[in-house]
């Protein structure tokens, strides 16, 4: 697998959406190619950052009370 092919699969690799065979090929390439490994790390950092920033807030407690009241009449 060359750089273009590995980078084509970058997001699917990080999302764990590749077949085991292709995933192995990507992993092998990343092991041998520092620039592609660096780019993969950058994208992984970005995805973790987005998730962390967006999951900080939950539903307001009042909404939950309202829904429970509507559903179960209490």
């Amino acid at each position, binding site marked *: 697998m060359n750089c273009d092919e590995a980078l084509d699969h970058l*997001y*699917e690799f990080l*999302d764990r*959406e590749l077949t085991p065979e292709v995933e192995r090929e990507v992993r092998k390439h990343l092991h041998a190619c520092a620039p592609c490994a*660096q*780019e993969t*790390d*950058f*994208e992984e*950092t*970005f*995805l973790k*950052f*987005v*998730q962390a*920033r*967006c*999951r*900080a*807030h*939950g*539903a*307001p407690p009042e*909404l*939950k009370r*309202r*829904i*429970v009241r*509507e*559903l*179960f009449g209490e």
Partner: protein
Amino acid sequence: MATPAPPADARRAGFEHEALVHLDALHRVALRLTGNAADADDLVQETMLKAYRAWDSYQQGTNAKAWLLTILRHAFINEYRRRTRRPETVDVETIEPFAVFPDVQQEDPQGAFFDRIVDEQVLRAIDALPEAFRETLVLSDVEGLNYQDIGRILDVPVGTVKSRLFRARRLLQAGLYEYAVEMGYIKRKAG
């Protein structure tokens, strides 16, 4: 020996255990779809009421979160989209994504500048994405659903999920990079 719970209690317990636990997730997605707190609250409440009515058709042990999000998205399209956001006028599939990594490779290859961006700015940047990208990105990158479940919820093929996700991530990255440059968190690459 304990007596089995009456059917009504069992139904309620099952719903609480498998559906109500996803309230935070539904609320996060609703906020990003409607763009305001009051509509998001109403949309989530309506989703939960619809889900409870349809609870007997939910197959126990399958992905309850994906099932709930499907109900939420239908409710949004049918009742909220028209009045909360204008329908898209750009053809999202023609948007050319811009890669940030080559620009920051020298100065900040680990993307440390992201850490300096506050939550609100990230949410604003997500809200600025075209709706088709925004919903795909939120289901994947915030809620952690796989491509197949996202395809089912949005009623598009997995290939479309993939290409939208690629463009959505690149667009979001570019938007946050521009912001980081403006704020002086990182210097734009010369040339």
